[in-house]
């Protein structure tokens, strides 16, 4: 049992970070504004969670200019997708073992 719990990634304990990764698993590039709307969080909150995922190498950032406005989009990296899948597997195993 113990080693299953350690497979749960600490980084994904936050609801917001889980949400960010969920969006990036099924969409190629997601814009900051769209992410904010889907997750219903504040700018600052979202930005700090994204930067911690970015530091871990799970998320990559792309900035483009639409007219004069900068537009920031995010995508999950290969490592990020793997880590998230492992986390989900661990969650599922935990649920199964309990029943």
């Amino acid at each position, binding site marked *: 049992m113990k080693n299953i719990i350690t497979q749960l990634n600490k980084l994904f304990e936050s609801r917001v970070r889980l*949400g960010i990764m969920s969006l990036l698993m099924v969409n190629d590039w997601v814009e900051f504004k769209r992410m904010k709307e889907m997750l219903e969080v504040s700018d600052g909150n979202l930005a700090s969670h994204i930067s911690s995922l970015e530091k871990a190498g799970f998320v990559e950032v792309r900035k483009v200019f639409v007219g004069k406005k900068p537009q920031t989009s995010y995508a999950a990296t290969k490592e990020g997708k793997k880590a998230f899948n492992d986390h989900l597997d661990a969650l599922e195993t*935990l649920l199964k073992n309990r029943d």
Partner: protein
Amino acid sequence: MSKHQEHLETLSEIRSLMERSSRFISLSGLSGVAAGVIALAGAIVAAIYLEVNLFEEHHYYVIRQGEKWGMDYWTFFFVDAGVVLILALAAGIYFTTKKARKSGQKIWDPTARLMLINLAIPLGAGGIFCLILIHHGWFGLVAPTTLIFYGLALLNGGKYTLNDIRFLGITEIILGLIATYYLGYGLLFWAIGFGVLHIVYGIAMYMKYDR
């Protein structure tokens, strides 16, 4: 809340986010029912104009050369099809907006755009293809062709909305192929494909998602 419950809730939240962010889920079953009723009415009006029985074999393009209701064959054909298309689209937008509002979803978001673009490309190709068929005088092929291209469009756009739309697409394609074989029954197959199938799928989707 126990850890167990917490994990379960986390998983269902993840699933819902994935679904909502990649698929347009506000599509209303009622818009299918409305579109079906409108299409059936359009087909019946066409049968009355042509003075034909839907269930008999016909070669529509030789039936009527003169005018009726002050319109020649082609004017009537485009007015009838145009009115059906506009009313069906309006009903679709109305019921879908209503459903989106009820569940607090946005009607215009990246998923709606993806769905529409993927619908529009095969549909546009089909429309142009039909105009070319008419240009060459192959009128009998128009009804089956609209069914096949509409089915392909639904199959393609269905990737970005409720899965039922893909099954509707496959059904339309099969019906279109059958209609291509039984060429003289174009209007009947058209009424089944755009009328009856929309109503049946619309009701099924309404029962499944909207209630």
